[in-house]
């Protein structure tokens, strides 16, 4: 092997700031649900449609992990983007959102959450709703108080990618994580319960 071996991973469990207790490779897909777990086959924790207001999935930490940098010298400029349209029936006010740092933080470091130091265990009411990333009391500690704290992932497309991690990685290890969460509106605003369409996101990174 001569080039770096890099994969997509998700961390769950554990405790705030201490890293998760379960790391899983996203070998095909991940699932946003109302429970802190990585289980793409478990459909027992969907996000119910709220009678009023919004419900949310538990947030997830998804990141690139440099399994082995091999003979590559450096990896940096980790970015994330989508095709511009998440075709889910989450209603007019719904979205697939991603945690944001304010401009100063983003320029220096990107919008990703440093792993494992700033990992924040996803919480909420299982089977009903997760706490929002921006919840002042129960939200994600790395993003609370940022301006903005979240953005719809549809803002990030191939021509306008979200910088996740600007760190120069000269060895193996975890890159910063994108923190993702689904927001679901009411049926009156167009939300429809059911299995959602396959969607993909893309990580890109530079290697030399």
């Amino acid at each position: 092997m001569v080039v770096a071996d890099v994969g997509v991973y998700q961390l769950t469990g554990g405790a705030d700031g201490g890293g998760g207790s379960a790391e899983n490779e996203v070998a095909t897909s991940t699932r946003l649900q109302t429970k802190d777990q990585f289980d793409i086959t478990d459909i027992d924790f969907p996000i119910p449609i709220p009678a009023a207001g919004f419900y949310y999935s538990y947030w997830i930490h998804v990141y690139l992990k440099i399994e082995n940098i091999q003979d590559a010298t450096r990896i940096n400029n980790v970015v994330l983007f989508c095709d511009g349209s998440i075709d889910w029936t989450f209603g007019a006010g719904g979205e697939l959102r991603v945690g944001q740092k304010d401009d100063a933080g983003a320029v220096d470091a990107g919008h990703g959450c440093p792993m494992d130091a700033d990992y924040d265990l996803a919480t909420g009411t299982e089977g009903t709703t997760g706490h929002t990333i921006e919840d002042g009391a129960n939200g994600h500690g790395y993003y609370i108080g940022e301006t903005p704290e979240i953005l719809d992932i549809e803002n990030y497309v191939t021509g306008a990618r979200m910088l996740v991690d600007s760190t120069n990685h000269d060895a193996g290890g975890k890159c910063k994580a994108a923190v993702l969460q689904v927001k679901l509106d009411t049926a009156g605003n167009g939300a429809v319960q059911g299995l959602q369409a396959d969607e993909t996101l893309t990580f890109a990174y530079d290697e030399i």
Partner: protein
Amino acid sequence: MDLGYRPLVYMWVAEFDDGSALPQFDPDTGKQNRADPRWLPEKGVGGSEDSTPKIFREKTLYKFGWYPFSKEIAAKIPMVVIPTRNPIHTVELKEGDELVACRRNHIEFGIMGGGYRRVGSHYLLGIRGGEIKTIGEDGNIQQ
């Protein structure tokens, strides 16, 4: 089977102003020579200055290129590389020019279903502050 990387279709060759050259892969052994991290398009945060191999600290680049693999060298490299008839892409550097070159990798993963796929890599080449070419795995310049 996920190799953990996209198969390479180009290798770099750095030429110096003293007439010497360094290829990414040794043509006799297939061993990879380490690149200069200063070639990355983004400067990035942190990292070690010691990461720059000695040869790039001591010599001056005057030409750099992405070259397709021949069948002969591909057979010596201990990873999956694909010989092609892709065009060669090179850039010449004048005094003070800073090279930009890297492989930009893409990994697509599913959310609520959808698959996992290593999308085609791009090979970047240019001079910092000038035009940076993005070369696809088919050898064509991407728009």
